[in-house]
C-alpha cells in the first residue's frame, strides 16, 4: 500500500494528541441496478483532536462517502469506525442520530439553511437540542455575522449564508466539524472569508475539522492533507507550516 509510510509518520502525532476517529479497513460498496460500485476500498485513517484536515481528490474518489460515514449518515459495508471508543459501524439509527446531534457539526456545499428561519433561529435550531451549546449570538459573532442575526436566508449573500451554516454547525460545540465542499458554490473572495471563519473556529475552539474539496489550493491551510483516488487514500501529507486562508491562492 502506498500509504504505509505515511501512516507510520502520522502515528507519531498520536503521542502528542488523542485519536478522535479510528477508521480501520473500511469499505463501502453500492449496488446500483446491475452495477456494483466500490466507493471505498479498505480505508485506514485516524483523525486527531483539534487538527484541521483537508480531504483532496477528484469527484468519485470516495471522499464524500468517507465523510458521510464519519458523520454517521452512512454505515460502511465492512470495516470499523470508532469514535471515542464508540463503534459507529454497529450503531442503530437512534444512536447515530444522537451522535450527530451531540458530536458532529455539518457544513454543506449549498448551505442548507431553513429558509423560513432567520440566521439566529437557524442556529437556535441546533442550540435548542444540544446539551451544552453556545449562545446563538456568540456563534454568529464568531463568523462575523453579529449584525445580521435577524436576516432570513433570502436576505443574505451566499458567503453569509455559508457562514450562518458554520455558526449553526459550531454552536453545539461539536467535537468534529465536517465540511463538504464548503466553498464549492462561492466565488474566490467569498470562499476565502468562509475558510477564514473555519480556521478561526478550529483555532479558537479546537474543533477537529475535516474539509472535503477538490480545490488543491485550499490544502495549504491544513495540518494534514489526505488525498484520495478511486476509493483509496493515496497520500497523507503533514504540512510543516500552515498558511492562513487570507494568503491562499487558487
Amino acid at each position: 500500500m502506498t500509504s504505509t509510510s505515511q501512516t507510520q509518520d502520522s502515528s507519531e502525532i498520536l503521542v502528542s494528541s488523542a485519536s478522535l476517529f479510528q477508521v480501520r479497513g473500511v469499505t463501502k460498496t453500492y449496488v446500483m441496478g446491475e452495477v456494483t460500485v466500490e466507493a471505498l476500498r479498505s480505508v485506514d485513517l485516524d483523525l486527531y483532536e483539534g487538527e484541521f484536515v483537508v480531504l483532496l481528490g477528484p469527484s468519485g474518489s470516495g471522499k464524500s462517502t468517507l465523510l458521510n460515514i464519519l458523520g454517521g449518515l452512512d454505515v460502511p459495508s465492512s470495516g470499523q469506525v470508532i469514535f471515542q471508543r464508540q463503534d459507529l459501524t454497529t450503531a442503530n439509527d437512534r444512536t447515530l442520530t444522537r451522535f450527530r446531534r451531540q458530536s458532529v457539526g455539518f457544513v454543506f456545499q449549498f448551505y442548507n439553511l431553513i429558509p423560513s428561519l432567520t440566521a439566529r433561529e437557524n442556529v437556535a435550531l441546533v442550540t435548542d437540542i444540544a446539551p451544552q451549546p453556545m449562545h446563538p449570538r456568540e456563534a454568529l459573532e464568531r463568523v462575523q455575522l453579529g449584525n445580521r442575526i435577524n436576516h432570513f436566508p433570502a436576505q443574505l449573500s451566499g458567503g453569509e449564508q455559508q457562514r450562518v451554516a458554520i455558526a449553526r454547525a459550531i454552536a453545539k460545540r461539536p467535537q468534529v466539524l465536517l465540511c463538504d465542499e464548503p466553498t464549492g458554490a462561492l466565488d474566490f473572495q467569498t470562499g476565502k472569508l468562509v475558510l477564514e471563519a473555519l480556521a478561526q473556529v478550529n483555532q479558537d475552539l479546537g474543533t477537529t475539522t475535516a474539509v472535503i474539496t477538490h480545490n488543491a489550493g485550499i490544502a495549504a491551510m491544513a495540518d494534514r492533507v489526505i488525498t484520495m483516488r478511486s476509493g483509496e487514500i493515496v497520500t497523507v501529507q503533514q504540512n510543516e507550516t500552515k498558511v492562513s486562508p487570507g494568503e491562499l491562492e487558487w
Partner: protein
Amino acid sequence: MSVLDQKLMRDLLHLRGQVIAISLIVACGIACLVTMLSAYDSLQLSQQTYYDRYRFADVFVQLKRAPDSLAARIAEIPGVQRVQTRVVVDVNLDVPELKEPATGRLISIPEQQMPMLNDLFIRKGQYIELGRRKQVLVSEVFAQANQLKIGNTLDAVINERWQQLQIVGVALSPEYVYEIRGTELFPDNQRFGVIWMGREALGTAFDLDGAFNDVALSLMPGANQADVIFRLDQLLKPYGGLGAYERADQISHQFINSEIESLAATAVMVPTVFLGIAAFLLNLVLARLVSTQRDQIAVLKAFGYDNLTVGLHYLKLVLVITLVGAGLGTVVGIWLGAVITENYARFYHFPVLQYRAGIQIIVTAIGVSGGAAVLGTFTAVKQAVSLPPAEAMRPEPPAIFRRTILERMGIQQFVPPVGQIILRNLERRSLQAGLAILGIAAAVAILVIGRYFEDATNYMVEAQFRQVQREDMTLVFNEPLPSRARYELTHLPGVMQAEPFRAVPARLRFQHQTRLSGLTGLDPQGELRRLLNQDLRPVSLPDTGVVLTSKLAEILGVTVGDPLTVEVLEGERPTRTVPVVGLVDELIGLGAYMDIHALNQLMREGQTLSGAYLTVDAYHLDQLYAQLKQTPAVASVALRERVITEFQKTIGGSFAIFTTVLVIFASVIAFGVVYNVARIALSERSRELATLRIIGFTQGEIAAILLGEQAIVTIVAIPCGFALGFGLAALITRAYDWELFRFPLIVTPASYAFAFIVITLAALGSGWLIRRQLNHLDLIAVLKTRE
C-alpha cells in the same frame, strides 16, 4: 405512444398516491351528481308518464253531497276538460291479523271499467264485476303491508254495519303515489289503505245514491285554473263544498314534488363542493409538478417543443386524473342512483319506477368534471407554458419569508424555532393553507349535514309526537257528536283520559290571501294536545280568537292582533272575523287552533266534538281495539306510538344509507386534502427536513414539523367546518320550509363529535402515510444537490 405520453404515464405512476386521492374526490363529486341527476330523472319521468297515462286530475274538491246532475254544470265551467264525480268515504276496517283498527278510504269507481281521471293501474287480479257489490280493489302497498291476497276478505263498517269486502284486484292510482291519510308525514300502510269499490254499492251504502261528494277535474291547456277553482267553489257552495284546490296542493303530489325539487337542488350543491376541492388539489399538485420539472420543461422547449404541446402535456395529466375519477364516479353514481331510486319505491308507488341514467347524464358528468379540472389548473398550466427556456434552466429563487403576525406582535420568544418554521410556512402560503382549511372544513360540514337530517327529523318527531301530541290514540268520528260522547269514551275499556276536539274545514282569509285549512278546537285545559312555541314551552289558548302555526301566519301574511276571516265549510257555513291571538311553532303541517267552546259558539252549535285524544292503559289495549272495531261511529283511529315506529322503520333505514355514503365521501375529502397538502409540503421541503435530520433531529421531530402544519390546518378547519355545517344546515332549514313540514335548525353535540372523530381519523390516516414516507428521506442526496 409518444415519448411525452410515456413521460405522462411515468409522472402519473410517480404521483400515484396523490393521483388516487384526487381521483377519489372527483369520483365522489361525480357519483353524487350522477346519483342525484339519475334519481331526479327517474322520479320525474316515472311521475310524468304515470300522470299522463293515468290522467291525474288538475283540480280537486270535496263536498257534502251533490246530485249527479250537477256534474254537467261543472263541466260547463270554461276551461274544464273532464269531470269525474265520486264518492269518497273513510271507514273503519277490520284487517285479518291486525289487532288495531285500520282506516280504509273507499273511493267509488264506475261499475264497468272505462277510462277515467285518476285511473287505476291494476297490478294483480281484475276490475270489479258488474253487480258484484262486495268486490273491491285494494291499493298495492296496503295489500303488501297486510299480506292481503286476491280472494281475501276485509271487514269494513259501511252504513253503520259490518260488511265483508272481497278483494278481486290490487291497484295503484296517481292520486296516491305517496299513500297517506292526509294529516301525517309518514305513511302507515298497514293502518291506512285505499279501497276502490263500485259506485252503486258505495253510493247506496252512504246515502249517496245518484249523488257524489268528491270531484276531480282536468283542465284544458291554457285554462285559467284560479278562475275554474273560483267558479267551482261558487257552484258547490250550496252542496257543502269544502273548497277546491289545485294539483300543487294535492298531498301525494306535494310530497313527490318536494322530493324532486330537493334532488335537483342537491344535484347542484353537493358536487360543486367536491369538484371545487378536486380543482384546488389538482392545482396544488400541478403547480408543484411544474416547479419540480422546470428543467425538463426548459429542455423540451430548448429542443423545439412549442407551448401548446407543453401545455397540453400537463393538461392531459390533469384530465387523466379527472377522467379516471369521473369514470369511477359515474359507475358508482349509476349504482347508487339505482339504490336510491329503489329506496324511493318504498315511499312512492308507481306502476313502474323505472331507473334511468341517460347518456346525457354521463356526458354532463364528464363535462362538469373536466371543466372543473381545467379551470382549477389553468394557472399552473399557464405557468408551465409561459416559462422561458433559459429561465426554466435556472433553479427557482429561494423562498422569501417574513416575520409572522405573532412576531410583529412581539410574542415570538414563546415559540421555539420548530414552531417558527410551522408558523412562517403557514403564513407564507396562507392562500394554500386557507384553501386547505376550506377543503377540510367542507368535509366536516358534509358530515355535520349528513347527521343534521337525522337530528332534524328526530327532533321533529320528538317535538311533534312526544311534546305536542301526548295522547296514545286519536279517534275521529264519522259525524260530530254531542259532548256526552266524551263520557261514553271514558267508559271504553282501558281509556284513562279523553280530551275532546272539534275540527272543522275552513277557508281562512286575510286581505288577499286565502288558505284552506282545518280549524281545530281544543280543550284549553287539555294535557294531551298542547300548543308549544319554538322552545317547546306551552302557549296558552285564549278563550276567544285563533292561534295559528307560524307557517300558516306567514302564508296568510298575518301577525298577532290582525283580524282573520274564517269561512267555515261545514254545517251552516258561518263566516266570522276572529282576531289572531297567538302563534305556535309546530313543525308539521299548517294549523289553526281555537278554544273548543269558542269554536262551538262560532259554529252556532252546542258542545260538540269531532273526535277525542285518549290515553289508554296498555294492559287493556287489545280489548279496546276489539271494541273500537265494533264501533260504527268511529271513522278512524290513529296511534301515536305506531307513527313513531313506522317512522323509525322506514325513514331511519334511509338515513342509515345516506349517512354511510356521506361519511365515506367526507372521509375521502378529508383524507385527500390532508394527504395532498402534506405530500406536497414533503416534496417541497424534503431538503430542509433532511438537513434537520443530518444535524441531529430525530424522525419524530421532523415529522412534527411537517405534520404539525397539517395538524394546525386540521384543528383550525374543524371549528370552521362546524360553523360551515351549521350555516348549511340553516340554508337547508330554509329550503325545507314547506307547508308539509319544516326542518328545525338542530345540530346535536353528538353530530359535531361524530364529524370531529371522522375527520380526525382521516387526518391521522393520511398523516401516518406521510410519516412512513419520511422514513425514506434520502439524507445524503441533500448534501450534494441544490434544489
